[in-house]
């Protein structure tokens, strides 16, 4: 399905890209099925965990410095404000803006509201939010409750136009809509594209840099300056005004293919801003292809080549030394699909063999029908196929895999995910920072990180000795696909 900015709400990942949350097979099999349209989703008859896409949707817009969120929801959903505020303060300290709470308001829907509707409440909440915080944009996010009772968010917003002079934009993120949390990203991007981004007035030398947090801001700004361009890390740490001018940028890149596909492709479709879709800049191959992709778009190919040659000379000899110590290490990777494929490539470059890949969900393609380049690369370049499961973060499945395969190391990316691996004695590295293994220095540091984790296993060993896992022997002896139903194609 194409990106359609004329509707108020983006389609879910499942509907738009055919994304799935249940699969077990191999990387090549998944890629092949994705290509020929034969990739079906396998439902689970037992689910231990899931995540609401509202977290992703609201998380994205909470980072905008001068925006506020009004969550039309019962107070339980508005608990997302806590996480948003923690991240916001952390980002403030890291990136140099005011470390305060996110401006996140909830309408506290209760039983009466479900019966009589809550338009008046929403209206009052938006007015008060504007009065208190004077934001430059307000996102009105929805919830399961507001969705079931059919609350007419758009009408309320329309009615408020004469009173509130800033953009008030609906952000449709009802939890029941999608099993895939990444749908939330798409909803947030859709809100930006339809409510904030304005037609370009001029062309700038800014590169839109879609990412999560922006820890490498300083280094990347220096890097880009060499080529006469300037990165705008978004959405966290930007202003509404900056976002409104994304259409004027010279290009868009995204640290994660899964994260950025809707926005990058949307900006290209609507405003002609080229979306540089290459391997992600993790590891040497990825970084070089990425930089070359950017160089091509901004017309600085030669400068990029010179830079690459220089850096290779500096870093590669060091990297070889560490690589030798990593030879023969076997790993299991469990992350979002973009990062899982990305990091398998990085590990392969470092001589670490991935013996199982697990992605939380799987996009058979990106918007504009484009192939998932990080997967495509693996299919073409890996010496052997890798077993691959799409696990929707089911911890019990992952523990089963770790127990069977007993890898030397486990890589994951989300809070708490490596804790369980440690509890069963598997050395783990939590690749929480999105810029881990970014570029030459990053790759070198990552290699050292791996070396440390496999050399000193005392944390994993000590914890495992003192922990009784809640999984039964029975379960640990089953195939990990036991609770996956047949695929529906």
């Amino acid at each position, binding site marked *: 399905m194409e990106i359609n900015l004329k509707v108020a*709400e983006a389609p879910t990942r499942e509907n738009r890209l055919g994304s799935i949350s249940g699969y077990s097979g191999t990387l090549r099999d998944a890629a092949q099925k994705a290509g020929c349209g034969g990739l079906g989703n396998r439902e689970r008859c037992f689910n231990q965990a899931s995540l609401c896409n509202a977290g992703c949707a609201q998380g994205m817009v909470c980072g905008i410095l001068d925006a506020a969120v009004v969550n039309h929801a019962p107070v339980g959903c508005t608990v997302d404000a806590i996480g948003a505020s923690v991240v916001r303060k952390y980002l403030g300290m890291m990136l140099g803006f005011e470390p305060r709470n996110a401006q996140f308001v909830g309408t506290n829907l209760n039983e009466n509201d479900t019966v009589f509707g809550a338009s008046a409440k929403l209206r009052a909440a938006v007015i008060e939010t504007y009065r208190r915080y004077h934001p430059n944009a307000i996102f009105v996010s929805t919830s399961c409750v507001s969705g*079931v009772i059919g*609350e007419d968010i758009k*009408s309320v917003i329309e009615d408020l136009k004469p009173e509130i002079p800033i953009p008030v934009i609906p952000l449709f993120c009802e939890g029941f809509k999608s099993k895939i949390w990444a749908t939330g990203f798409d909803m947030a991007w859709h809100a930006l594209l339809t409510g904030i981004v304005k037609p370009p007035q001029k062309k700038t030398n800014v590169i839109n840099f879609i990412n999560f947090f922006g820890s490498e801001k300083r280094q990347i700004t220096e890097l880009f300056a060499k080529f006469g361009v300037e990165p705008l890390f978004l959405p966290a740490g930007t202003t509404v005004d900056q976002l409104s001018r994304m259409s004027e940028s010279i290009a868009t890149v995204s640290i994660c293919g899964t994260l950025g596909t809707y926005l990058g492709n949307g900006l290209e479709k609507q405003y002609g801003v080229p979306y540089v879709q290459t391997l992600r800049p993790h590891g040497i191959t990825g970084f070089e292809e990425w930089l070359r992709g950017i160089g091509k778009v901004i017309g600085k190919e030669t400068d990029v080549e010179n830079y690459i040659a220089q850096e290779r000379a500096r870093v590669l000899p060091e990297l070889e030394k560490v690589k030798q110590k990593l030879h023969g290490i076997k790993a299991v990777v469990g992350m979002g699909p973009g990062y899982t494929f990305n990091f398998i490539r990085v590990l392969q470059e470092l001589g670490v063999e991935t013996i199982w890949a697990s992605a939380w969900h799987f996009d058979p393609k990106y918007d504009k029908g484009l192939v998932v380049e990080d997967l495509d690369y693996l299919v073409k370049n890996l010496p052997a196929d890798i077993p691959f499961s799409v696990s929707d973060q089911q911890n019990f499945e992952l523990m089963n895999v770790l127990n069977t395969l007993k890898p030397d190391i486990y890589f994951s990316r989300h809070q708490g995910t490596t804790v369980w691996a440690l509890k069963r004695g598997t050395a783990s590295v939590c690749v929480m920072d999105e810029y881990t293994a970014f570029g030459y220095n990053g790759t070198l540091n990552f290699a050292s990180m791996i070396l440390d984790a496999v050399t000193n296993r005392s944390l994993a060993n000590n914890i495992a000795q003192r922990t009784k896992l809640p999984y039964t022997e029975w379960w640990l002896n089953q195939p990990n696909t036991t609770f996956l139903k047949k695929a*529906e194609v």
Partner: protein
Amino acid sequence: MAKHIKQIAIYGKGGIGKSTTTSNLSAALSKAGYKVMQFGCDPKSDSTNTLRGGKYIPTVLDTLREENVVKAHEVIFEGFNGVYCVESGGPAPGVGCAGRGIITAVQLFKQQKVFEELDLDFVIYDVLGDVVCGGFAVPIREGIAEHVFTVSSSDFMALYAANNLFKGIQKYSNSGGALLGGVIANSVNAPYAREIIDDFVKLTNTKVVEYIPRSVTVTQSELQGKTTIEAFPDSPQAKIYTSLAYKIAQHTDSKSPSPMDVKELREWAAKWADLLLSYENGELRVEAHGNI
């Protein structure tokens, strides 16, 4: 330039003849050469029956329940004379939330750009009788139907329902919602029926688009699983539906209605009750004597 698709919503009290009227309207428009889609918005999913030989079609929501992802084309079925039939479906009586069902079904179609692909001239939403929650108002809301027509008889409860509907339309009229095209007066047989409806529309700032009598031809057609247009195309009833279709095809200016408040409505009804009594003065008095 993209063709402007006329999107119409038909509302009215349950059982008043919306689906009958809508199906005949779709059939007549189709015979006049237009490409029409009829979109049933009722969990009973029976709006398009008479365009499909009395058969029920698989609904959008049932298909979604089985398959998780639905392509709009899977739930569009061709009926009489090529009219495209869609039923949104919904839960069984007493469970779930039909209103939410309408939202989900309509959105599916909006997101898939189906209407343009089918090169439609008309999309007609046949919506369940009483607009009891947010979901049922979805076709009136901005971006879906432009014109609403309400089917009503001269019975007080039907007019009350129409008046209620007018309140909904008035509410959405400021935010780009659909406007009222007029009233389709159904089952208009008794002499006073016309006058009552005429008076009602005068007070509520709208008009009657067509007067449709109750006719056994319609019943006969429905029992055959057909519209009157299909079963008895040369009948007087078919001619009336054709006239309605023509008027709706030409219709352009809808407006915001002026619903009466409850007190006004009751007083108006009471006035008519008195009038009716005096109308039938002679007959009624005689019968009354007989009973005493």
